[in-house]
């Protein structure tokens, strides 16, 4: 299974390992793919198949925008 980790800057190897361990614990063996996207502003987004965990600043701002609108 492929796991896409998106962040505004490249994540460190220790951060990558921590994430990979946690994901593999739940989903089994996975292949980590890193994507650097400065438009995310801050935080990290992890996409595991159709499942997505979005903890980016951009996502939080979007949620705030929806609550205000």
């Amino acid at each position, binding site marked *: 299974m492929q796991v896409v980790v998106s*962040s*505004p*800057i490249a*994540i*460190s190897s220790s*951060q990558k390992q*921590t*994430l990979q361990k*946690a*994901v593999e*614990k*739940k989903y089994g063996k996975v292949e980590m793919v890193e994507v650097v996207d*400065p*438009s995310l*502003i*801050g*935080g*990290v987004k*992890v996409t595991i198949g159709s499942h997505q*965990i979005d*903890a*980016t*600043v*951009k996502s939080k*701002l*979007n949620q*705030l*925008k929806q609550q*205000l*609108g």
Partner: protein
Amino acid sequence: MEINIAQVIFQIINFGVVFVALTYLVYKPVLKTLQQRAEKVKASQQAADDVLSEKDAMDKTKTKTVAEAKKQAASLVAAAQKQADDKLADQMAKAKAQVKEFVEAEKEKWEAEKKRMKKEFEKQLSDSVFVVSEKVLSESLDKKALTKSVDASIQEILKAL
């Protein structure tokens, strides 16, 4: 002076003959004519009285009819006036209700428009805030802050997993 008996007797007989003749030939016809005339006068008087009585009766009838007509006319005028007043009051009430309904509808429209404008303004404001925040954060976060935010996010993701 010497009285001629024969002449006296002749005069008496002559008077009697004339008296009888006048009685039968003049007095009775004249009396009859007078009686007929009196009856005619009486009949005419009666007719005149009847006409007067009839006139009085007609006058009374006329007065009564006029009074009744006046009463009916007054009653009709009063009824028409009442009907007109009722209709006017009804139309006034309807007009007031229509005006009230119109004002309420316009008020509701205005409130809805205000609400829509407020919502639109809030949306524009939040959009602007979002754009500004995004821009400010993108420009102000240095590498250290970005690393810190990535660390915090990873902790958040670990909890979610």
